[in-house]
């Protein structure tokens, strides 16, 4: 009897693991089906994003423009002193980040590049992650690429990070045992608690989320999702989050940048 029960238990365990493996094999979204989260929003939220005088993200862009032209300290340079006019010089930059940073021999995202510039070239105090100033500068830089297609650079040194990102994206984790792909690859377009599950593309960051009542970074969103599946989120600036960002940009190739986007 005991043996029989053991056998049944084993069979059930095998069936569950086989099902788990099937469900975990995420089907990647083909280029023709790829679409921005903008398409999954209500008409009202779309209108809010499309009108620059109604899009609250533009308040951060305004702030970022002021910061771009201001000296962070008495004897340091403003961003504009080296880079000049952001509307020209920063065009397309956000569409290719994260990139490989030679100085540190690792991939960095846009926020980290801004922080690095502040530390090494402006000798200014570092900005906290998700601080109003860092979000404003990032939003201002990202805004210059609005309408341009996401294009991950063909840099072989980025390959390990992109593969690591893909592995993290498809790996189940947390108490709910879900991967990113379980929702955003396998079930996009369906509903979760009344909301349409988007494909999960990073083409609008930093973006204004109505739930946050604030602008937020892609890393905040990623950590948010990890808490949602009851997993321990990676720290801000960790290589894992940058790897996920690098993979997401590859996965979103060709989508137009919307920064600052609005999302529910």
């Amino acid at each position, binding site marked *: 009897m005991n043996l029989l029960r053991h056998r049944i238990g084993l069979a059930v365990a095998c069936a569950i693991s086989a099902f788990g493996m099937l469900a975990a094999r995420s089907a990647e979204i083909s280029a023709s089906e790829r679409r921005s989260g903008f398409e999954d929003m209500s008409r009202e939220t779309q209108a809010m994003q499309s009108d*620059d*005088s*109604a899009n*609250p993200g533009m*308040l951060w862009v*305004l*702030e970022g423009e002021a910061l771009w032209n201001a000296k962070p300290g008495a004897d340091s340079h403003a961003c504009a002193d080296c880079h000049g006019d952001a509307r020209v010089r920063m065009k397309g930059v956000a569409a290719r980040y994260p990139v490989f940073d030679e100085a540190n021999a690792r991939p960095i995202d846009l926020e980290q590049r801004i922080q690095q510039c502040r530390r090494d070239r402006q000798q200014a105090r570092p900005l906290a992650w998700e601080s109003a100033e860092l979000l404003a500068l990032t939003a201002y830089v990202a805004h210059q690429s609005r309408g341009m297609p996401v294009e991950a650079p063909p840099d072989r040194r980025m390959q390990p990070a992109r593969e690591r990102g893909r592995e993290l994206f498809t790996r189940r984790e947390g108490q709910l045992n879900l991967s990113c792909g379980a929702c955003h690859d396998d079930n996009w377009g369906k509903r979760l608690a009344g909301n349409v599950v988007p494909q999960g593309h990073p083409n609008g960051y930093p973006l204004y989320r109505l739930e946050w009542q604030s602008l937020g970074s892609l890393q905040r969103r990623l950590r948010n999702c990890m808490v949602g599946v009851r997993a321990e989120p990676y720290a801000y600036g960790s290589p894992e989050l940058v790897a996920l960002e690098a993979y997401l940009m590859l996965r979103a190739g060709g989508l137009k940048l919307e920064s600052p986007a609005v999302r529910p």
Partner: protein
Amino acid sequence: MARALINVPAKAKRGDIVEVKALIAHPMETGYRHDIKGESIPRDIIKSFVCSYNGEDVFRAELFPAVAANPFIAFNVIASENGVLTFSWTDDHDQIEVRTAPITVE
């Protein structure tokens, strides 16, 4: 100074109904929340908004803690004469933010 975005059509025909939009950066802290130490976060909201057209009030609103952060207010006015629309927001500390936008009526 808080950032604000105003949208008023630069030109309008006399008698036209034009849409005016005003967005301002503000946390709209309700006063009902607590910080991680359990202490109450004091209320800090914009409590009133007024728009005047060449000195005459054309739109007025009272705001309450249920209004979301970064309040956005849109309304219509009749373009009657050349002049200036003045927008002012008053917060809990009685600080007033003022912005102006010109309108040309043909």
